[in-house]
C-alpha cells in the first residue's frame, strides 16, 4: 500500500448507487420471470415428471420417427421462410434507404399495415389466394398456364409464413442499411471496382449484420408458428407446434408436449451457437455516418 494511493471516501456510497440503473429493468424482469421463466420451468418439470419422474417422454419423442420427421420439417420450413424473407426484404430495405422521406413513409406503412391485421385474417386471405380455385390459380389459367397446387403444400406454408414474417426482416435490415456510408461504395468505384463488384465487396458485407439480425428473428419466430401452417398446410407440412397441440389439447399428454417444446428450444440454441462464429463481425461502428 502506498501513501500516494488516492483515497476514495465516496467509494462505498458509489457502490450503494451502482445497482440503481439496473432497478429500471425491474418491471420488465418481473414480467419476464412471471410469463416466461415460470411457465418454462413448469414445462421442463412436467416433461420430466408426467406421468412419472423420468425421461420417458424424451424416449417417446426420439423413438417415434414421425416426430423426428416433423422436427426436421419444422427447421426446413423455417429455413426456407428465412431465405424467402431475405430475398424479398433486401431490395425493399435498400429502396427504403434510397428514396426521399415521403416515399419512405409510404414504404414503411406498406410494411406495417399488414402487421396491424390479425394473423388469422391474413392467413385466411392466403387460403383464398392460394386455393385450387383461388385468385392465383384463376389468373394462371386465364393466362393459359396450368394451375399449380399451392394450398396444403409446403410451398403454400412458406409463402404464407414469409408474408407474415417479412416486416421482422425488413426493419432490422433497413436500420443497418441506413447506417451504411454510401461514400464507401463511391471510394470502391474510384479504386477500380465496377458497380456489381463494389456491391459485393463493400455494401453487402456491411449490410450482413442486418441480414443476420433479421434472419435470427424470422427463423426463431417461424419455428414456433402454429396458425399459418395449420390453415395453409396439409398433413405433409405439419410443423412441431401442431404436434404439440395434438398431444396437449387432444390427448392431454402434457409431459410429451412439454418434452417437444424442450427439444425445440434446445435444438434452436444449438443451431444459434453453431451460427454465432459466422455472424460475429470484428469491425466496429467506424466508417459509418
Amino acid at each position, binding site marked *: 500500500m502506498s501513501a500516494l494511493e488516492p483515497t476514495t471516501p465516496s467509494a462505498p456510497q458509489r457502490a450503494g448507487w451502482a445497482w440503481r440503473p439496473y432497478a429500471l429493468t425491474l418491471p420488465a424482469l418481473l414480467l419476464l420471470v412471471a410469463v416466461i421463466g415460470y411457465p418454462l420451468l413448469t414445462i421442463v418439470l412436467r416433461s420430466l415428471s408426467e406421468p412419472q419422474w423420468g425421461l420417458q417422454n424424451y424416449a417417446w419423442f426420439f423413438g417415434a420417427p414421425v416426430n423426428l420427421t416433423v422436427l426436421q420439417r419444422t427447421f426446413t420450413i423455417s429455413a426456407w421462410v428465412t431465405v424467402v424473407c431475405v430475398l424479398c426484404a433486401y431490395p425493399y430495405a435498400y429502396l427504403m434507404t434510397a428514396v426521399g422521406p415521403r416515399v419512405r413513409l409510404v414504404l414503411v406503412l406498406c410494411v406495417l399495415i399488414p402487421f396491424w391485421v390479425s394473423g388469422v385474417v391474413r392467413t385466411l386471405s392466403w387460403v383464398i389466394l392460394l386455393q385450387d380455385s383461388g385468385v392465383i390459380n384463376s389468373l394462371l389459367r386465364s393466362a393459359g398456364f396450368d394451375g399449380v397446387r399451392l394450398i396444403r403444400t409446403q410451398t403454400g406454408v412458406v409463402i404464407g409464413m414469409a408474408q407474415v414474417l417479412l416486416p421482422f426482416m425488413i426493419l432490422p435490415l433497413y436500420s443497418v442499411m441506413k447506417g451504411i*456510408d454510401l*461514400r*464507401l461504395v*463511391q*471510394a*470502391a*468505384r*474510384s*479504386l*477500380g*471496382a*465496377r*458497380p456489381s*463488384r*463494389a456491391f459485393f*465487396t*463493400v455494401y453487402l*458485407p*456491411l449490410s450482413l449484420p442486418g441480414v443476420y439480425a433479421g434472419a435470427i428473428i424470422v427463423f426463431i419466430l417461424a419455428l414456433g408458428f402454429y396458425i399459418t401452417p395449420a390453415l395453409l398446410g396439409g398433413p405433409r407440412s405439419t410443423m412441431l407446434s401442431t404436434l404439440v397441440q395434438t398431444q396437449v389439447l387432444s390427448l392431454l399428454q402434457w409431459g410429451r408436449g412439454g418434452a417437444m417444446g424442450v427439444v425445440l428450444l434446445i435444438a434452436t440454441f444449438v443451431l444459434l451457437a453453431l451460427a454465432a462464429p459466422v455472424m460475429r*463481425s*470484428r*469491425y*466496429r*461502428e*467506424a*466508417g*459509418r455516418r
Partner: protein
Amino acid sequence: MNPRAENRGAAIDLDTVSKAYGSFKALDGVSLRIEPGEFMTLLGPSGSGKTTTLNVIAGFTDVTSGQLLVGGKSVVGVPAHKRNIGVVFQHYALFPHMTVGRNVAYPLTLRGIAQDERKKRVAKALDMVKMGDFAHRYPSELSGGQQQRVALARAIVFDPPLLLMDEPLGALDKKLREWLQLEIKRIHRELGTTFVYVTHDQEEALVLSDRIAVFNRGCIEQVGTGRQLYDEPATLFVGRFIGDSTVLRGEAKSDGTGTALTVAGETVIAPRRLAGEVHPVMLLRPEKLAIRRPGQDAAGTNRLSGTIAEAIYLGSGSKYEVKLGDGSTAIVRSPLAGESFGLGEKVELCFDGADAKLLPDDSTADTTLT
C-alpha cells in the same frame, strides 16, 4: 532529400466545363490545364465549384457541357472505375470490414495482381505513409491521421498517374495537419504523380502547391503560383482570399498620371489607372502599410488616419486592426522592434502609392467571404 522522381503524372485539360443542377450552375465554363507531375490546388470557399471540379475529374459527376482530357484522352462518359485515378476523401472512406492491409490491397485485388506482387506493393505503399506496422489493424482502431495515411496508401498503391484529394486534412487538428502537409509534399516529390488538391484553407494551399486555381461561384478567378496570387491578384476576390489585405474604397478620380481615391475626406494616390468604366479600389498587403503616431514625419506618399481597434501580439511582431474614417478596417503588421500601440490610440497609416494594387470593385467579394 529525395530528388523529384521521374515524371509519371498525367496532364489534365478542362475545356469550358460546365455542370448545372437545374438552374444552379455549380461550374460555369471552367478551363484549366494541369501539367504532368504538377501539384495543383483548387482553392475557394464552400460552394465555389472546387469539389465539383474534383468530382468531374474523378468521374463521380457528369459534365453538362465541355471537354475533359486526362493524359490527352477524353474521359467524358467514362465511368469512375475505368479512369484509374486515385482519390483521397475528407472522410477517409476506409472499408470498416477490412484490415488496413486488405484495404490497401483492394485496388490491386480488383486488378487481378498476383498475391506475392500484391503483398510487396501493399508493404511499399504502407511504408511510404509510415503505417507499415498497422497492416493487421482495423480502421476503427486507428486515429484520424492514421486512417487518412492508410487512405493515401490505398489511393497510390496502384500507381495512378493522377491523385485527387478532397480536403483530406479537413477533419484533423492543426498540428497534425501541418505535419501531414509536409508528408503529402514529400510523397508528391517521391511519386512524381500529378496531384490535384481541394481545400478552402489558403495557408494549406500556399504550403503545398506548385500552382493554385482560385474558385469563386463556379468560375476560376485566377490561376498562378502562391507568390503570383499574393503579389498580383487579378481580382479583388483573389486578393482578399489569399493572405491578409486592406481594401480602400472611396470616391475615385483617374487621369493620365494615376488614380486618386478619397476615403472619409483623406485622399490617397496610386500612380496607375484601370482601363474601362470600372470603379477602382485599392488593395494593400499588411507589410506595405507603415503605422505611426500622428504628426511624425511620413516616408510614404499617402497617409490615412484611424484608431487601433485590435492589437494582436504574434511573437515575431504585432498585428493591428485599424479602424479607418469610413468605418472599414485596415490590417497592419509591425516588426517587434517598432513602436507599440494601445487600443483606441489614434494612428496614421502611410504607404507608397506604387505598393497599392488597383482592382475593379467587386461587391460580391464581401458576401462570399463570410
